């Protein structure tokens, strides 16, 4: 099938290209041009044509928590948000620690033919931090990396061995740095706001101490390690230094943490109950700056559908997480505009840079690359209301906000999978 996307503003973050032009698609891939007439032409005048977004953290709630969301609803949300590839963390029920589960998830996702799904396997059995999973079997089943999601390994011996074992096969390990003992029963940044609201706090060094431990292990094992959901200024500095040292590390930040801070908790707004917690304004500014200077490689949605029953609870009892697949693009655009970044650099953090971390060929518009594309109107704004969201998760701190950037068309492997 030959597809022509005509007259759009083509933005390719990988090459820095940003110009009005046409994009030719043939057999699911971008091509330079073709002689014959296209079977389908999309008029992209006034729209940005960019690589589809690659989201390194989106929970689809399958298997096990279909009452919160289903693959159908969340894959709809993904493509409605212009996300064409997503990595899903292993904290499903049961966790993704067996090849059968991974295989089923991939088959189900494939049958829906919307976004591409990249499962991240569990690093330890049941995420308990005790026994290693069969990583090479899981990799055969399709796992692209191994992770503990939000469940840190407390036994450093196990973490060390898990990283060594993964390094044996060249598997990347994705870790969220949090010292569980220091995090304790905390639910908010240990600072003025938590003190005023009487919420148990998580000190910022719960992150930096765990990060320091993990960086030492990276140094020793050489494991390619991606640090997930940075939340503190100190961690950004540590990653910057680690990269300068030449360690094989990368990292991401949840897009919420680029825009929000502890003050947004207001009067116990449980939509701001997130993991890691929203931290100080200083931390937020350092995250936004780190994302701009490339210390932080990617922004992710950290999409976590939570049903209302689990959010309509006192703050500490509410389930952490927010819906995000449909907000990633607008919130990244908002961040880029606030920092006056060129559009190509803004989008790089959710396309080409994420593709590099994931090790995939998408995330770029060049001959031979998969034709995963998003066409969006950068000027049209829309208001975040529950009814506007395709995701079954309606909880987000951004309810009521006006968002820039309306997705018009999403294309995966040359097929139109979403049309607004």
């Amino acid at each position: 099938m030959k597809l022509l996307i005509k007259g759009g503003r083509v933005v390719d973050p990988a090459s820095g290209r940003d110009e009005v032009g046409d994009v030719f698609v043939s057999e699911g891939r971008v091509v330079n041009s073709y002689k014959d007439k296209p079977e389908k032409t999309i008029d992209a005048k006034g729209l940005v044509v960019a690589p589809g977004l690659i989201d390194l953290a989106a929970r689809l709630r399958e298997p096990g928590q279909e009452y919160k969301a289903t693959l159908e609803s969340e894959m709809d949300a993904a493509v409605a948000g212009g996300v064409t590839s997503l990595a899903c963390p292993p904290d499903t029920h049961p966790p993704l620690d067996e090849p059968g589960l991974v295989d089923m998830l991939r088959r189900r996702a494939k049958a829906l033919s919307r976004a591409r799904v990249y499962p991240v396997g569990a690093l330890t059995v049941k995420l308990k931090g005790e026994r290693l999973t069969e990583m090479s079997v899981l990799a055969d089943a399709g796992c692209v990396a191994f992770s503990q999601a939000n469940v840190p390994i407390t036994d450093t011996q196990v973490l060390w061995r898990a990283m060594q074992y993964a390094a044996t096969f060249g598997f990347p390990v994705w870790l969220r740095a949090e010292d569980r003992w220091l995090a304790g029963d905390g639910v908010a940044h240990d600072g003025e706001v938590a003190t005023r609201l009487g919420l148990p706090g998580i000190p910022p060094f719960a992150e930096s101490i765990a990060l320091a431990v993990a960086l030492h292990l990276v140094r020793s094992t050489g494991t390619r390690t991606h640090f997930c959901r940075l939340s503190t200024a100190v961690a950004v500095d540590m990653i910057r230094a680690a990269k300068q040292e030449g360690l094989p590390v990368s990292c991401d930040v949840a897009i919420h943490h680029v825009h929000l801070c502890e003050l947004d908790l207001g009067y116990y707004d449980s939509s701001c109950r997130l993991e890691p917690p929203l931290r100080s304004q200083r931390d937020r500014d350092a995250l936004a700056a780190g994302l701009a200077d490339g210390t932080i490689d990617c922004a992710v949605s950290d999409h976590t559908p939570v049903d209302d029953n689990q959010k309509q609870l006192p703050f500490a009892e509410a389930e952490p997480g927010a819906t995000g697949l449909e907000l990633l693009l607008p919130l990244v655009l908002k961040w880029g505009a606030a920092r006056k970044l060129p559009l190509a650099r803004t989008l790089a953090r959710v396309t080409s840079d994420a593709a590099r971390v994931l090790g995939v060929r998408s995330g770029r518009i060049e001959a031979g690359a998969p034709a995963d594309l998003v066409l969006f109107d950068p000027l049209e704004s829309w208001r975040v209301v529950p009814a506007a969201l395709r995701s079954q998760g309606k909880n987000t701190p951004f309810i009521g906000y006006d968002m820039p950037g309306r997705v018009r068309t999403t294309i995966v492997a040359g097929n139109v999978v979403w049309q607004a």
Partner: protein
Amino acid sequence: MPANPQLNANGELQHLLSIEGLPREILVQILNTAESFAGVTEREVKKVPLMRGKSVFNLFFEASTRTRTTFEIAAKRLSADVINLNVAVSSQSKGESLLDTVANLSAMQADVFVVRHASSGAPYLIARHVKPHEHVVNAGDGRHAHPTQGLLDLYTIRHYKKDFSRLIVAVVGDVLHSRVARSLIHGLTTLGVPEVRVIGPQTLMPAGVEALGVRVFHDMRAGLKDCDVVVMLRLQNERMSGPLLPSAQEFFKNFGLTADKLALARPDAIVMHPGPMNRGVEIDSPVADGPHSVILPQVTFGIAVRMAVMSIVAGN
């Protein structure tokens, strides 16, 4: 920050959730109203008809005897009907959600919900979901606030010291876990107390506590110097030995109030405690029962203050 959820469109007290964020005028209104009720409790017929026909639901998700009883007495003296619900052992244990419990009680025609909950912020959640004519009074939520306790502490201080503007007040002990401390500190700073001190070990001080407008002391003797008011906080049994403190004895040695430490405060200093007291842990018996102690009058004032709060919210 959204609008203050405690106030109605006219800026009047709709719910009492926290002392923080309440204007000085409302605090003074509550204290003055309480003063007018103080006489009632000494009369032979200890009742006024201000809340006749209204229903007060005591909704205690966390066990309490003293606070619940004083709310009950206060409501009865206002001629309200009082319904006590020990939710900790009823519907919640059957899995009913907090908001479902409240919706069910609301269907039974409540006017005032007096709520105690182990989770900080729970009364805010309830206040967001009740009907416009219903009022929520926070009787203690997690570590966050215990506003009627804070108000009765303010009432007690005003009763003995008259003027807030020249006082040094010290709050001693487990500030980290104390809703009483937070409520009192907000009240004192709102009413213009020039120096509020908190005294305790670092392990019992919340992060950034200075931002509440207090001076932090780790040396109790230095902290008590020239104080007009000393407020001792209760230390929960389960926190007396573990990662926060080595033992009750060592806590008493450093932060327990004894007569010789109290001698560093002003000669006319008053000693307060929200109760229940741990004698020999945070306070020495001779001090608790001594001439500086106003711990029992606090309990009496508590009834008048709770009458004031309930009658004011029910009237708005």
